[in-house]
Every structure is written in structure tokens, then in C-alpha cells.
């Protein structure tokens, strides 16, 4: 199939970007990233600079493949990452606009590749459990009800891709932070640091320059792991409780 692409090209963080137009011959069975591989081989053959884009697992679990496709992070399908999106979701002759995640907190490194270090710093501020060294404890010695385990696991499927930030009109990171806080606050291992964690993570989130959530729901609608909005409600509860306790 013949596809027309309008791709965002930007030399580095400080340079001005612009759209470049390309034509690509793709098969309907190719993934969106494979279609970009074809484009890049074409560009290299022509002696031009290939398009920089992030990818790693190509099986929907690493969260690297950040592309905003026709205004929607990870493209038009629900619950899939760009690497799991196939060209059969488009039609012959389509013009597709491809842009990077756009948020002040995610500066462009080059072309479609953005720096998501802000997420790492939020995790480093509290998104972990501290474990004393020594013998590994038998995992089954800590009893966790099935429903709790399931809900914590649902939140834990967040792959840190940043589509939530990219979709939100406020560039808010609350779905991501909500997922991490929910996962850790539900499990026994997360209890000792529970209140300090949520306050530290929210402070870091604000310091990184993400916007404030206004509950539009765009994040959950675009999340490739379909993390529900209820994790943000949970984040709110956890945060207000911690604040009332003077944390």
C-alpha cells in the first residue's frame, strides 16, 4: 500500500523542528515501526539522515515506541503501542502525520525521540520499596488477597511510556504516578513508605513541569495498557491522607 508521511524532523532539543513529507510502500502486515524501518532504509540509500525514533521490545512491553500518529499517541487503536499497530489499520493513499510526544517535561532529543528522564526521577523520588538485604523471604509467606493482587497487578502493567502525558491537554503525568502509587500502596511491602512516597512522588511530578490534572480522561483513553482513571482517584486519596497527617 502507498502511504504519505508527514514526519516531524528536529535536529536537537534546541533547534526548530519542521515536518518533512515522504512516500513509503508498505505491506498491510507491517507494524508501524517496520514501515518506519522501510522509510529509514530508503533515506539511508538516498544518503539522507534517517528518522530517529525510540523502540526496543517491539512487543508492547517496554514503552519506548513514542509516536503521536494523527494527533493520537500510539495511533488510532485502543490498548496498543505503536509497535503493535499494523498498517492494515490505515488505508491505501492515507496521509499520516507523525509527531513526537509534546510536553515541556519531555524535551525532544532528535526527531521523534524524546527524553522521558522525568519519569525516572519521579520513580527515584519514591516509586520503590526498600528491602533489607539478607536471605530472600519466601514470597508466599506474605498473604495477599486475590482481588488486591489483581488490582495491584492491573496498575503495575503501566509500562511508563508517557502516552498519558502526551494525550493530556495539560501534559499531566497523574495517570502514570497514580498507577505507580496504587500498585505500591495496595501491597504489604509498600506500607512502610506509603505516605512519604506519595508526597515525594507528587512533589517530583510538579517539579518536573507536568501540568495539573483536570479529569478530562484523555490519558486513560489513550493508555496502551488501559490503566483506569480510578488510579488517579486513588492517588488523590493517598495524597490528601498523607497531607492531613502532616507529611
Amino acid at each position: 500500500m502507498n502511504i504519505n508521511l508527514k514526519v516531524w524532523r528536529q535536529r536537537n532539543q534546541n533547534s526548530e523542528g519542521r515536518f518533512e513529507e515522504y512516500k513509503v510502500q508498505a505491506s498491510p502486515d507491517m507494524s508501524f515501526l517496520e514501515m518506519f524501518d522501510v522509510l529509514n532504509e530508503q533515506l539511508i540509500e538516498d544518503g539522507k539522515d534517517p528518522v530517529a525514533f525510540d523502540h526496543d521490545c517491539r512487543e508492547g512491553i517496554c514503552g519506548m515506541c513514542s509516536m503521536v500518529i494523527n494527533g493520537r499517541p500510539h495511533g488510532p487503536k485502543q490498548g496498543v503501542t505503536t509497535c503493535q499497530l499494523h498498517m492494515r489499520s490505515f488505508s491505501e493513499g492515507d496521509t499520516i502525520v507523525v509527531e513526537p510526544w509534546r510536553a515541556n517535561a519531555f524535551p525532544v532529543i532528535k526527531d521523534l525521540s524524546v527524553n522521558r528522564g522525568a519519569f525516572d526521577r519521579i520513580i527515584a523520588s519514591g516509586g520503590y520499596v526498600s528491602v533489607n538485604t539478607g536471605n530472600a523471604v519466601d514470597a508466599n509467606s506474605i498473604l495477599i488477597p486475590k482481588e488486591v493482587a489483581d488490582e495491584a497487578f492491573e496498575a503495575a502493567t503501566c509500562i511508563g511510556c508517557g502516552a498519558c502525558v502526551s494525550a493530556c491537554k495539560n501534559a499531566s503525568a497523574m495517570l502514570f504516578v497514580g498507577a505507580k502509587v496504587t500498585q505500591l500502596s495496595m501491597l504489604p511491602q509498600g506500607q512502610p513508605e506509603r505516605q512519604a512516597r506519595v508526597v515525594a512522588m507528587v512533589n517530583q511530578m510538579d517539579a518536573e513541569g507536568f501540568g495539573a490534572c483536570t479529569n478530562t480522561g484523555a490519558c486513560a483513553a489513550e493508555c496502551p495498557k488501559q490503566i483506569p482513571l480510578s488510579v488517579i482517584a486513588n492517588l488523590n486519596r493517598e495524597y490528601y491522607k498523607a497531607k492531613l497527617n502532616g507529611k
Partner: protein
Amino acid sequence: MGVLSFLFSSSLGRKLVMAVTGIALIAFLLVHCLINAMVLLNDGGQTFNEAARFMAENPFIRISEILLFVGFLLHIAQGLYLTFDNRKRRAAKYTGNPGNANSKWYSRSMGFLGTIILIFLVLHLKHFWVVSRFHAPHALGEITYANGDTMENLFLEMASVFTNPIAVVIYVLGCFSLAYHLLHGFSSAFQTFGVNHKSYTPIIASVGAAFSIIVPLIFAIIPVVMHFGIIK
């Protein structure tokens, strides 16, 4: 104040202020709407005027009114701050436009809808609140009913304001904005409070939708029926 400073410094604190004041304003709307609905009794405004007098004279209501003003100011100030601050968080804008694929237009337009309501509110306060509370010189005077009760005739003030078709149009537009503002705001406040569960979130959404349609509709009907003389 130390413990509460997060209400004005953190993103989650600011959101809590929006939700708490929003719910207070919703409560106010409910009372206001019930009183306005008395106009529809078509008794020459007597019940309505009596209710208005009660609201003007009851000390508890007067104190609540001060709180209400504080609530309005906080909601407006914080809302405007959030709207402009959030806009700055994405300096480079997208070219692709998702339309309404991932969110409702009114959820994304709360600042705009709120601004229309604010403009309406200023006009509305000038029309009625200033007149009824400060007995401004252009108040249309008092009325004495058959039972000997004398009171400010706010009903007549309404009838006079709504003879102007432009005022009617502005009031109806204000109610439209209010309806969409509430359609997002009502359930959004509960989400902010952390009230989200698959068993009762759908109930909150339905009650919110009903409230957002019925209350602005009652508000909007009054200028229209008064303008066309259906209620006099």
C-alpha cells in the same frame, strides 16, 4: 496554614480546591434553582418574593452568602490559574488533532465555559443581587400583599430585566455554558475526592447528568417565559 499550603502550591491541592468549592457552588445552585422555580407557580411572584425576603433577612443565609463569595472567588481564581498554567506545559503544540476521540469537548473547555459563566455572573449580580441587597436607587420598589405583608418586589425587577431580548439571550447562553460546565464538573469533583468505584461511579455520573440538564433548564426557562409574558 503550613499544613494547608499544599492547597495553593501542589497540582493535587489546587484540584482539591476546585472540587470543594465546585461542590459548594453546586449546593448553592440547587437552593437558587428551587427558589427560582417558585416563579413558575404563576402567583404574581408572591411565593418567590417571600422566599427572596427570607433569603435576604435570615442571618444564617447571610453568613453562608459570605462563604459563597469566598467559594466563588477561590473557584474562579484557581480555575483561571490552572487554565493558563496548564496551557504553558506544552510549549510546542500538536499538528495532528484527535478531535473528540479521547475526551469530551466540554471537559477540555472548562476554562472557556467558566469564563462565559463569569461574564454572565457579573451581569446577573448587577441585575438582581445589588438591587435586592443594597436597595439600589433603581430598585422597583415594594409590594404589599393581601395579607398585609410588605416586601421588596424582586419579581417585578425580573419581569423588567427580561423585557430586554438581549438580556434573555445572554441568560440562556449563560445557562448553556453552565449545563456543560456541570456535566464535567459534577462527576469530576467526586473523582478528585478519590470517590471512584465501579459500583457507584455510574450512579454519580447519572445524577450529575440529570442535575446538569434539569437545573440550568429551570434557570433558562424563567427569562424566556417572562419575556413572552407567559408568567406575569
